[in-house]
């Protein structure tokens, strides 16, 4: 197995053995029309319309990446509002006043799949996006061109290397057979010969359970990965499991691989059986100021403020979508849970790090899983030297944050790299 750079992190997976529970249905849900990478949907309901669970409330636009949005609850579309996304852009959001009946939409039935096209259409119709955090629409990932980029390996990402977050682990423990069904369907419909499930070796229970569920099927392997952050980063995972390298500007399919997150494939497994689109997801609520860490099935659009009581977040100063390494700060505690969030982390600052001069200790270089030179990238960015940034391959940075994490001078290296990438993109 290839060795990555990366770092050792405290795992802090306190919620690992807490079974997932339902939350009391919130009175109001704010469902944004964009909950993935790509373009926002157009609202398919008007103010005052009645909605039911699984009913389509956002129609995808024709051009570009886009997946439909469905109602997580039954009730009334109370309002169509403007919604500010984390990156500063806006989209529409449907505000639903729930009625507590949770009546299922009459059109819900398992998808009928005859061929590859049906399959891709069904996956798109499910509203599925990568549930690991990046939120790449799943149908787009699966519609690779098998002539140009033949795919021979399906990788299931169960690394879950972020501290605190355990939602994929719970998917393995509670929905292992859904995962297997999802894997089999994908392999069958896309004619992929083998599957490797990669799980970090700090989750031995999930590894042995999956081995048991898979049984004697030789085409699906479970592999234990070293628990080293960022093991779950797509490129790192591919390298670890297959030794293949995704070149700059290329997709995993170019080296014959498709990577799906464990929760994503588990969801697809259920969807193929019952046809219920993506309207809720499992998230972990934890953090360094949380009294009762836990896992919950949360309807999309639930405000984070409605969740705080469930885990007893006390005196938090920051909250992030996702884990503390790559998580995005919430600017408002009333922001909703979307398809992208595998957890919400509540944080109290433990130590403040002062930024001082780089001492050239080389820690950032040793920590970078892509073998970049973060200290050189930073000074090139500060000089606005785009030529040097390109030479140093700023574009390959996966924003894992390892460099910032280890820097004794408290330099915000990962952040600078993001800015550098934006600068290069504008050229």
């Amino acid at each position: 197995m290839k060795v990555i750079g990366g770092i050792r992190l405290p795992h802090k997976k306190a919620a690992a053995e807490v079974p997932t529970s339902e939350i009391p249905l919130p009175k109001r849900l704010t469902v944004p029309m964009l909950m993935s990478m790509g373009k926002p949907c157009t609202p398919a309901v008007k103010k005052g319309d009645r909605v039911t669970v699984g009913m389509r409330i956002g129609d995808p636009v024709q051009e570009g990446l886009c997946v439909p949005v469905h109602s997580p609850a039954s009730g009334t579309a109370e309002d169509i509002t403007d919604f500010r996304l984390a990156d500063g852009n806006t989209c529409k959001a449907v505000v639903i006043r729930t009625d507590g009946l949770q009546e299922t939409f009459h059109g819900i039935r398992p998808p009928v799949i005859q061929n590859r096209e049906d399959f891709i259409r069904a996956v798109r119709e499910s509203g599925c996006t990568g549930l690991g955090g990046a939120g790449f629409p799943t149908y787009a990932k699966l519609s690779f061109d098998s002539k140009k980029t033949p795919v021979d390996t399906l990788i299931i990402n169960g690394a879950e290397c972020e501290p605190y977050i355990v939602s994929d682990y719970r998917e393995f423990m509670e929905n292992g057979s859904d995962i297997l069904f999802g894997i089999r369907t994908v392999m069958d419909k896309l004619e992929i010969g083998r599957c490797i499930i990669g799980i970090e070796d700090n989750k031995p229970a999930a590894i042995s359970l999956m081995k048991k569920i898979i049984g004697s099927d030789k085409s699906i392997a479970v592999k234990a990965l070293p628990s080293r952050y960022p093991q779950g980063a797509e490129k790192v995972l591919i390298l670890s499991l297959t030794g293949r390298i995704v070149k700059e500007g290329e997709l995993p399919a170019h080296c014959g691989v498709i990577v799906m997150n464990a929760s994503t494939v588990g969801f697809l497994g259920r969807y193929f059986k019952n046809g219920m689109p993506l309207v809720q997801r499992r998230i972990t609520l934890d953090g360094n100021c949380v009294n009762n860490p836990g896992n919950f099935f949360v309807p999309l659009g639930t405000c984070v403020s409605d969740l705080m009581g469930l885990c007893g977040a006390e005196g938090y100063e920051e909250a992030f979508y996702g884990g503390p390494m790559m998580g995005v700060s919430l600017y408002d505690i009333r922001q909703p849970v979307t398809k992208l969030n595998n957890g919400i982390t509540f944080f109290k600052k433990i130590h403040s790090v002062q930024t001082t001069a780089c001492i050239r200790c080389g820690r950032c270089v040793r920590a970078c899983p892509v073998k970049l030179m973060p200290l050189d990238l930073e000074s090139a960015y500060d000089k606005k030297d785009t030529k040097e940034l390109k030479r140093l391959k700023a574009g390959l940075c996966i924003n894992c944050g390892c460099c910032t994490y280890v820097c004794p001078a408290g330099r915000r290296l990962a952040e600078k790299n993001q800015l550098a990438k934006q600068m290069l993109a504008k050229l």
Partner: protein
Amino acid sequence: MNVSPSPHMHDNISTSKIMLQVIIALMPACIAGGIIFGPTAVFDLALCVASCVLCEYICRRLMKKSNTVSDLSAVVTGLLLGANLPVGIDPLCCVIGSVAAIAVAKQLFGGIGQNFANPAIFGRIVLTVSFASQMTTWREPFYYKKGVDAVTAATPLITKNAAYSDLFLGTTGGCIGETCAAALILGGVYLAAVKIITLHAPAAFIGTTALLTLLAGGDPVYAVLSGGLLLGAFFMATDYSTAPITGKGKLLFGAGCGLITFAIRQWGSYPEGVSFSILFMNLLTPYIDRLCVLKPIGAKEERQ
């Protein structure tokens, strides 16, 4: 509500914590120096540390820059400079060496991380050049107990007849912090164990010197244990600012140091070449860094 870019966690390491580890790692050698060469040695070390810190403070004040005294790097420089001086040297030399190290070699180039020459080495070389006789007057171990005013001794590099045990324990003539091989190895291994340094440069430095000495018909163990080799290899060839960043670069750097040290010891007029070799390789560091860039995973073409 706070909003900040990721990552939201930090290793909780800082420059001052790193420097503190280096200071801890230097303690065995300093204590050994204190035992072997007496209170004057302790005084010399303390004087160097105090002058370095004060000089750093004044420089930063004069340049109207944030004060970096608390990062403890000046303390490390002071200890290293003191360790590189013979006991009983004129206190004025300690002060001059410190000023050369901090004001000229470090702050003139912008302070920590920016300097191209190792400050302590630069200070030592300034003193070697300007106070040659002071810098080569060595005392016998435990001279202070013998009551005689000054018992001079030659270093093992000149006599070439010290016992291994004396070299190992440091009971020979030499600079305050360089004689006790046991203490230096202990410190070096500690620094590597707590991941402050990697062993690339020390291993290449020591290995090259030993190998070349062996090839030239000398005694490699003697060459490694005597003189300032271990002090230089573990504590000065591993300096962050003035040595290459990548492992490959560090190996090259160490090998270069070993080669030059051997050449000076073998053919030079000066018996010890460790300081000069490190200073020379410091000058080459930017070029080595250019030569040894990493190839990012997934890069399509080689970086030039």
